[in-house]
């Protein structure tokens, strides 16, 4: 909201208080001042000029060549200025923008030649100075304006515009007008609020204009009949105040309506009374399917919950939001009905949000306006109009309808509660002084203060003792309260296990595994999900997505990492990303209807595919598998069982959904980790489905080797820990052997591992696969698996004889598997 400093000064003496000081103090005691700007600063540069001569332009019918005296603002030589306005004439005082002057819109005045005549400046219209819409001619200044002086001072137009953050006024219906802000200023500086006569001027004794209220959503509706009003231009003071706060001046009838709203915070509306039905005003709720054409020309479809102002049965205004076309005041209107009413805040708010029609009026009504205000506002309008147009008459008393009640009430305030909440003991006198300055009534009642809350603060804002404590705190200034230290008993602290676990995961992955942590949106794009085939729901869906299509709340974290994968691959040859986050499953909603929240870790490792001669363990699938093994070990979890992607998992019921291959995974190339006793696999690591990779744009030069993993943080939290263990250091040297087994390509490494351990008869301390090979010298359908084996005894040094016995047994074991021990 914009507040004019000069306007405030109509209500409170501001001498010795600069606009800047005022802004700071309002910020510290009342509401956030977002900025203070001079009003129309260009008027400091535009000066009063006097046209001494005007001759027609020799080469253009519509242009005049003027000689302008700039007084002290000139260099003594009169200026020649070419002007196109029809109303310019010799003898006028005009607003002169000299060469170098910058007008609104960053319009810099330059020396120019117009049809052969040099022009040194511009004679301005109101529109060019942003003082109105009139561009039909130049702005003619009063004859007494001193020539050469800046227009701002010559016409006494200097002002400051104070911008207050509307959000900080949400709870204060009383601050949506200058008088309300002035009341705060008066309280802050301990100056009196200047009196304002809000009594209605004399009215005639005609019957009051008929008003009927048929809805409980209008607590009060007042109407004042006005005769003989004319739509004259407003005087400069009124125009300037309205301009300062960003309102476009129109004519006196409209300008006063706006002025009263911006002065007292009470919206109001004028109707052409001659166009209203003799049945009078009826306030009622709309009928299903009813429409109204609002002043902005739009046809609005209404619901039964909307509130209408009707002339008889004909809608003439959308209550509290905007008037209708039908009874608009025109230039020839002389009989008016001034409407000043109170409407239910929720009704105004719902209708205006639904129609997307936010107006100055609706913004005020939805804050719960004081129902005592309409009569005051009607009187204010009537008095101001009478001053401008003494001939207007008010033929009938104010019509006043509605079942409203004065919201003023009394609260008990315990000084001790003030001191406890603020952490400082204030003298009772200060409590009383602050509340009184703010317009509260204060009466001592034993230990308590009985505080009367004035109606303007009583609708919603001040309803409990704590609200009064706020009033005292802010006027005392929070900055004057002492700083205190929180004290508490020291109790042993239980860290949240999930946060602790997540931290260790992040550290291990960003550290040892050299992955980059990323964070993604929780929303997924519908089109993207469909294109990539990842759209299987059900989904938690936004009803009002901010960006078209970005409406699915993710079910899992991993697909978020796919979204930017193509870009990442363009940027880097090797991409390692992980994210810890949440997914939402609506099919598992809790008692309160909230979708089940799953906490997940997702990883992607993508990059240039390994070459033809790459080692068996170079594909990222194996490396990511290793990263997970390392991660689980670092988390001190028991080693999980790794099994194939699809099919029955250990401990799992046959046919359970979790046994299916994930949609993003290569059908076969992947592993699942499972801990004994858990129903579902805790981790899946796989190559990305090549179809999905193609759909993600990882084709052609971006063709990639992509391994991905999805891990349930929830499952890790309940995974069995690795018990603390220690193995005594060996006392005898061990025997290291490398063995290679040639088998059918379809046989498993695990079977060879088992055969090795069996052949070792308890001497095998370690087995590790170091090569997988398939080649022509092995024969078709064969592969070779090579292992390092460590044999070691606790009781003696092993000899070559132990080695050859082991190899003998292994040879038999392998042939039982259909394979053979490779020699050499």
């Amino acid at each position, binding site marked *: 909201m914009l507040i004019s400093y000069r306007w405030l000064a109509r209500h409170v003496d501001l001498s010795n208080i600069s606009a800047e000081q005022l802004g700071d103090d309002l910020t510290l005691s009342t509401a*956030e001042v977002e900025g203070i700007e001079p009003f129309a600063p260009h008027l400091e540069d535009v000066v009063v000029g006097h046209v001494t001569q005007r001759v027609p332009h020799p080469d253009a019918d519509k242009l005049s060549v003027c000689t302008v005296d700039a007084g002290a603002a000139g260099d003594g030589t009169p200026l020649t200025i070419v002007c196109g306005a029809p109303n310019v004439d010799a003898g006028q005082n005009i607003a002169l923008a000299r060469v170098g002057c910058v007008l609104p819109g960053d319009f810099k005045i330059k020396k120019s030649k117009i049809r052969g005549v040099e022009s040194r400046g511009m004679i301005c219209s109101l529109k060019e100075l942003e003082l109105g819409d009139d561009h039909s001619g130049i702005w003619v200044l009063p004859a007494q304006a001193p020539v050469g002086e800046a227009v701002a001072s010559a016409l006494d137009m200097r002002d400051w515009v104070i911008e207050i953050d509307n959000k900080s006024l949400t709870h204060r219906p009383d601050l949506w007008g200058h008088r309300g802000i002035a009341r705060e200023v008066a309280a802050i500086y301990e100056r009196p609020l200047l009196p304002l006569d809000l009594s209605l001027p004399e009215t005639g004794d005609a019957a009051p204009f008929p008003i009927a209220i048929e809805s409980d959503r209008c607590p009060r509706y007042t109407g004042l009949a006005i005769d003989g009003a004319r739509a004259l231009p407003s005087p400069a003071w009124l125009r300037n105040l309205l301009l300062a706060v960003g309102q476009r001046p129109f004519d006196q009838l409209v300008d006063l309506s706006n002025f009263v709203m911006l002065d007292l915070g009470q919206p109001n509306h004028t109707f052409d009374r001659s166009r209203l039905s003799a049945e009078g005003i009826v306030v009622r709720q709309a009928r299903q399917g009813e429409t109204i054409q609002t002043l902005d020309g739009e046809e609005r479809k209404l619901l039964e919950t909307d509130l209408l102002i009707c002339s008889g049965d004909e809608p003439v205004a959308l209550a509290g939001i905007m008037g209708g076309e039908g009874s608009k005041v025109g230039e020839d209107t002389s009989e008016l009905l001034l409407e000043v009413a109170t409407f239910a805040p929720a009704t105004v708010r719902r209708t205006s949000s639904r129609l997307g029609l936010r107006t100055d009026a609706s913004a005020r009504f939805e804050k719960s306006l004081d129902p005592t205000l309409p009569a005051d506002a009607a009187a204010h309008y009537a008095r101001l109009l009478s001053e401008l147009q003494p001939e207007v008459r008010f033929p009938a008393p104010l019509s006043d309808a509605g079942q409203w009640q004065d919201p003023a009430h009394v609260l008990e305030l315990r000084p001790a509660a003030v001191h406890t909440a603020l952490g400082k003991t204030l003298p009772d006198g200060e409590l009383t002084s602050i509340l009184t300055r703010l317009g509260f009534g204060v009466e001592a009642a034993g230990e308590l203060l009985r505080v009367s809350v004035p109606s303007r603060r009583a609708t919603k804002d001040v309803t409990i003792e704590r609200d009064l404590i706020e009033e005292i705190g802010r006027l005392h200034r929070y900055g004057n309260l002492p700083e205190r230290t929180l004290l508490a008993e020291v109790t042993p602290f239980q860290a949240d296990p*999930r*946060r602790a676990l997540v931290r260790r995961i992040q550290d291990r992955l960003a550290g040892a595994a050299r992955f980059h942590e990323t964070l993604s949106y929780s929303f997924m794009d519908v089109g993207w999900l469909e294109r990539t085939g990842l759209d299987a729901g059900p989904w938690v869906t936004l009803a009002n997505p901010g960006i078209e299509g970005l409406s699915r*709340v993710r079910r899992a974290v991993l697909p978020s990492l796919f979204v930017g994968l193509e870009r*990442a691959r363009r940027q880097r040859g090797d991409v390692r990303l992980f994210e810890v986050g949440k997914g939402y499953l609506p099919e598992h909603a809790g008692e309160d209807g909230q979708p089940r*929240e799953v906490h997940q870790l997702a990883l992607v490792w993508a990059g240039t595919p390994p070459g033809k001669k790459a080692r068996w363990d170079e594909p990222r699938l194996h490396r990511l598998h290793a990263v997970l093994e390392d991660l689980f070990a670092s988390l001190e979890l028991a080693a999980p069982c790794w099994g194939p992607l699809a099919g029955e998992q250990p401990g799992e019921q046959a046919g359970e959904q979790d046994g299916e291959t994930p949609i993003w995974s290569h059908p076969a190339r992947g592993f699942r980790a499972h801990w004994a006793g858990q129903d579902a696999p805790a981790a899946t690591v796989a190559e990305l489905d090549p179809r999905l990779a193609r759909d993600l744009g990882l084709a052609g030069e971006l063709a990639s080797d992509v391994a991905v993993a999805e891990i349930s943080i929830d499952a890790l939290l309940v995974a069995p820990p690795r018990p603390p263990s220690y193995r005594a250091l060996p006392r005898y040297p061990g025997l290291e052997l490398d063995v290679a087994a040639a088998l059918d390509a379809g046989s498993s490494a695990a079977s060879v591992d088992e055969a090795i351990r069996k052949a070792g008869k308890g001497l095998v301390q370690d087995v590790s696969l170091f090569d997988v090979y398939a080649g022509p010298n092995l024969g078709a359908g064969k592969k070779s698996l090579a292992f390092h084996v460590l044999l070691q005894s606790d009781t003696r040094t092993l000899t070559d004889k132990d080695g050859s016995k082991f190899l003998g047994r292994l040879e038999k074991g392998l042939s039982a598997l259909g394979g053979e021990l490779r020699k050499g």
Partner: protein
Amino acid sequence: MDIDTTLAEARERIRACDDAAALKAIEREMVGKDGVVSALLASIPSLPAEERRAVGQGANQLKQAVLDAVAERTAALESSAVEAQRGAGHFDASVPAPAVERGSLHPLTRVTRELEDQFLSMGYHVLDGPEVETDFYNFEALNIPPDHPARDSQDTFFIEREGEGPELVMRTHTSPVQIRAMQRLTPPFRAIAPGKTFRNESVDASHEHTFHQMEGIVIGEDISVGHLIGAMKTLLRGIFNRDLDVRLRPGYFPFVEPGFELDARCPFCETGCSVCKRTTWIELLPCGLVHPAVLSAGGLDPERWSGFAFGLGLSRLVMLRYGIDDVRHLLSGDLRFLEQF
């Protein structure tokens, strides 16, 4: 053969030798299996008895002397090699270190952890809350009933509803965790809750529809504005590693009463800069005493318990900390961004 002459010649050759392999060759030639000394010793049986002893001694002396000379020369060669290494010519200290590949933690993670650690050390719990919230937790329990004008400023994302389920929203702030904390913990308690929040705003360099906040709540007996000021100053000291002037001014949030905006002196300037919009103050923490209605909604007796709450814009703090110019980078997943942390 004259042993003395042989020794003198050998010594001369050893002294002149400047190559370890050649030195070994000389050693072999003199004292090896088929060397001079072996030949000498082999000749002893054929010598007259009275010479044998002298020749034997001479041979052994010769052997020892040669070994000593070789060892001495070897040591000298080694030490001149070491000296040569030490005196090696030009070294270019401007050659950059070869890159070590590394991973990174997201800056939001870094800053959140810093704050968590600080609060953990002061006895705060760290809580989590769902991103998809009910209307009750996000609004109603926080003293924002339906049709309250404060709902406007929240630009809420609503969830499509099927049937009669409760109204669900993407949480517009971390404040719902205040209620969850009151329900879960036994007072007195202190808790923070960092996390994702959502507002249906149009997106630009300084506005995002998804951003991170951190809620804080302290519940106890006789908690005052003074405690709030003290706690916020401590927090800011932790964030900026120095004391910053703060000011508390009125701010309106329905779930606190009184409510404040806490501004800190701009840590980046003294006379106004773009960060503080030339005011020298930066708006950092909305906060206030917990509204009695909120305590009631959380199941606490407002006559007995009181407290304060605050909210910290984590995304904004991260941007301030690192000087990040565009909020959209935070959740972009752009490696060029992530790799910098």
